[in-house]
């Protein structure tokens, strides 16, 4: 069995199916963008809840963030895909189903929103209290303080960490093939079933993700270094 090395190196099968595989990669990025949008929105909401003056709201925010962070993505994905539609069906007395794409976006968005909550909170809380008090005492309103004093500094602080979160989100989009969203891994497994030659395809997929994510991570590193430099200056 161990004589198939050239297949991996040339990756001819991977090249033969490049169009389907590229469309799969496109689905990956599509889900990534939608999930990232959801994650940032929910992360902001939960972060505001965690910073609110009322204890109950704070507690809800913390509970939400911990729940999202501590559930494995795959478990959340399966749960979102099967349980809420059934509960809704029981409540509304009609049949409700989520399309795999919707479940994928919701599950991955929720899973990663927990991390964003923490990132945003850490960013905002890292602004010294004195800045807020100084802004208030010069007569700036709460909104103006947040917009012109807290936000510019906080964003700079949380940007590197958020970019890393985006990369982990992109990595976890590979899971959506498990609920039959036609992403790259899904296409790979379909072609494997047709061709019965898993080696070049799965190796090709691994190499493709490796190259994409490594270059994105390098870009992020570059960006965050220059952001940090700006912050120091």
């Amino acid at each position, binding site marked *: *069995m*161990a004589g*198939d*090395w050239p297949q*991996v190196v040339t990756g001819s099968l991977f090249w033969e199916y490049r169009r389907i595989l590229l469309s799969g990669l496109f689905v990956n990025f599509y889900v990534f963008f939608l999930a990232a949008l959801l994650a940032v929105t929910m992360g902001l909401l939960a972060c505001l809840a965690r910073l609110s003056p009322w204890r109950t709201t704070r507690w809800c925010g913390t509970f939400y963030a*911990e*729940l999202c962070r*501590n*559930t*494995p*993505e*795959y*478990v*959340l994905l*399966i*749960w979102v895909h*099967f*349980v809420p539609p*059934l*509960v809704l069906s029981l409540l509304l007395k009609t049949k409700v189903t989520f399309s795999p794409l919707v479940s994928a976006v919701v599950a991955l968005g929720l899973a990663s929103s927990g991390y964003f909550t923490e990132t945003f909170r850490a960013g905002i809380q890292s602004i010294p209290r004195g800045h807020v008090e100084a802004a208030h005492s010069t007569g700036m309103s709460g909104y103006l303080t947040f917009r012109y004093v807290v936000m510019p500094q906080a964003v700079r602080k949380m940007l590197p960490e958020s970019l890393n979160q985006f990369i982990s989100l992109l*990595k*976890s989009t*590979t*899971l959506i*093939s*498990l609920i039959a969203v036609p992403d790259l*891994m899904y296409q*790979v*497994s379909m072609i*494997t079933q047709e061709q019965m030659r*898993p*080696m070049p395809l*799965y*190796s090709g*997929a*691994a190499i493709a*993700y*490796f190259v994409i*994510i*490594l270059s994105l*991570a390098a870009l992020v590193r570059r960006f965050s270094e220059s952001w940090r430099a700006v912050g120091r200056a």
Partner: protein
Amino acid sequence: MLQRIIWNNRGEFLEGLLVTAQISLIGIAVAMGVGLVICLSRMYCRPLRCLAILYIEFCRSTPIYVQLMWVNYVWPELFGWPQSFFAAGWAALALQSSGYLAETFRSGIEGVARGQREAALSTGLSPFLTMRWVILPQAVLMMTPSLMNQFLVVVKSSCLVSVIAVPDLMYRGLRLTSIWFEPIEILSFTAFLYVAIVFALSAAIKSYSDRVRSRYA
């Protein structure tokens, strides 16, 4: 309802938990061994440095699911191993973590102040003794929290091995769902178990690392 489905199947859930625990522990143990070797060859063995960096970057930037599929389908053809799903499962978990752990070890070792090493060498300790008695004790203390966090990551990603039919907690949950057709109770309970385990582990890790930090830093 709950009693019929959850309590009567407690054996299944317990066995699943056991498999999850086994595969996570084996995975992190192998990852520590491999990670240490990779880290040492990156730091102290010039000719292997490039290979070690490539290995680390590959492990860290490939999604765990892709690695799992790759190990499960490609390794048996290339290397004739692993021959069981269980082995493929822990090998994939170890592959992912060994890259992260190699970097953890490196930053731990490099985090020990240079002067410590120089002082030890100048008092006549051999490089091995310096490593054993001066650098490692301090480095281990500093990297324990990230090591434990990596274990948490392994536990979280271990649910993916159910995809290749390793009978872990998630696999049992899905199988019970397809037997009983009660996804609401069974899947929610499975998810609850995962959340409870991961939450308990992360709380323990946090309190431990806070204690270490307050005592030594």
